[in-house]
């Protein structure tokens, strides 16, 4: 059974230095609040996994949480580069970042393999691409019936997966809807899991065949209304496209980045505090 608990306690007890951690959410439902809490608690040496590392991974990488990144597309969606990610890869700042790079199809299948307790994922993929030349974890196997060559990559099995969802009931059963991405697979592939939710309700009122994650398959459920900001939660909030644009100049400079993180994340107590300070600083900027 999932424990319904404040996010700070969930991160403190479930995320350890050196863990392999996946924060998932495909544009929708990105667990920004949980990422901030990991930064606040100063985790180090993490292997971060995510199909589309974006602002929250830019922040975690820039703050020195990550030793390695497993990913398939690292950019600021709709805007451009992730400057902290680029600085880590291009210049090794704040320290060298090891990368293991896949395609989306590879990553999605690797999560499926993890959720299925298979050691590797089988797919038609990477043919003609240079990715297998730079990633020794992309191999090829032969079909025992047709002798066709198929790509094989290791299953992703995070120590902890973190996602954001729309709601949980009081028992800790979680419902999400809309763009689902790989969240279900990422949770089921992981040893432990944290789900931040918009609200806790008496009855999920899940439609038939909805994406429900039962309480007993989760470690912790944490109420964090708006916890996906600047990403969104369908039915609750809109994506703040302005913030994605505003992030670009902040992240370009190491000093501006550090100052921003200090003021907005390290010097705030929680995500509500972050939102308050952000509202202030955005007013100043106008």
């Amino acid at each position, binding site marked *: 059974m999932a424990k319904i608990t404040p996010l700070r306690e969930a991160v403190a007890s479930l995320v350890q230095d050196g863990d392999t951690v996946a924060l998932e959410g495909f544009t929708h439902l990105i667990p920004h609040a949980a990422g901030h809490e990991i930064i606040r608690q100063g985790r180090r040496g993490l292997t971060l996994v995510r199909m589309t590392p974006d602002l929250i991974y830019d922040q975690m990488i820039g703050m020195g949480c990550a030793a390695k990144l497993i990913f398939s597309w*690292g950019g600021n969606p709709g805007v451009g580069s992730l400057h902290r990610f680029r600085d880590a890869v291009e210049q090794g700042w704040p320290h060298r970042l090891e990368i293991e790079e896949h395609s989306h199809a590879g990553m999605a299948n690797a999560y499926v393999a993890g959720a299925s307790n298979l050691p590797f994922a089988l797919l038609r993929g990477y043919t003609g691409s240079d990715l297998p030349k730079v990633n020794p974890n992309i191999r090829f196997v032969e079909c025992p019936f047709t002798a066709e060559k198929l790509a094989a990559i290791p299953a992703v099995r995070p120590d902890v997966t973190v996602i954001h969802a729309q709601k949980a009931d009081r028992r800790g059963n979680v419902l999400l809807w809309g763009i689902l991405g790989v969240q279900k697979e990422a949770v089921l592939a992981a040893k432990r899991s944290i789900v931040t939710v918009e609200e806790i309700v008496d009855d999920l009122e899940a439609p038939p065949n909805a994406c429900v994650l039962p309480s007993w398959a989760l470690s912790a459920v944490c109420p964090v209304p708006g916890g996906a900001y600047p990403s969104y939660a369908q039915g609750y909030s809109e994506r703040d*496209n302005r913030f994605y644009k505003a992030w670009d100049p902040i992240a370009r400079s190491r000093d501006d980045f550090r100052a921003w993180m200090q003021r907005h994340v390290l010097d705030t107590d929680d995500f509500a505090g972050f939102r308050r300070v952000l509202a202030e600083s955005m007013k100043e900027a106008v």
Partner: protein
Amino acid sequence: MSAAETTTSTLDFTATEIMTVAASRLLKDGTVCFVGIGLPSTAANLARLTHAPEVVLIYESGPIGAKPTVLPLSIGDGDLALTADTVVGTPEIFRYWLQGGRIDVGFLGAAQVDHFANINTTVIGPYDAPKVRLPGAGGAPEIASQAKEVFIVLKHSPKAFVAKLPFVTSAGYLDGGDARARAGIPGAGPTAVITDLGILTPDPVTKELTLTGIHPGVTVEQVKAATGWDLRISPDLKTTEIPDAETLTALRDLHARTAAAHGQTGGEG
């Protein structure tokens, strides 16, 4: 090349607009299209709002049959989910729908292409010591190989159209000729590269990208200067038909609706 002496300024559309409209026109009605965000998404939605109302748009985030009212700024905008016939998980998109062989056209952007329409979106410079680290592969390697055919849309420049890619992220025709088929890649590959200057299509035999279409007001010299290899020009070079008023209006309305909804006009990633 009858339009070579005409300048774009006297025509009532921008280079980006004619690129978008030209890309859009290539999508036939009823096509099942796997859409990348940014220019491909703009062109595909323009097609849906004009000549191809039955085009089926699939986004890698999960929406199948999306009919967004404004352009998505991200691959996972809520409008895509709300207007889709259904939304499935990302693994299913790649497993059952793309790898399953159900996509007619993969519509991709690119940072760089070479003369065999191979795509780089990974890195400029050596992989281990990059000059510029690009976002990476995303869905492109499998879209490029598994869609029945591929359209690539990107702006023309010598930095984007290069003789040799530092990194092949996604396969076009590899070394040309039948190299793609010999590698066991199922789809036909990139059948058109649409730019702000013209349209390049692969030579039927060598698969080298050849300029077969040029936008009105653009000169062959301009295109050659914007291409990082010695570009072959089709003896049968066609001038792109200018966008009709209805299509241009539809495109501009789409951008205006998008700006009103989002405070910006298009997404890149």
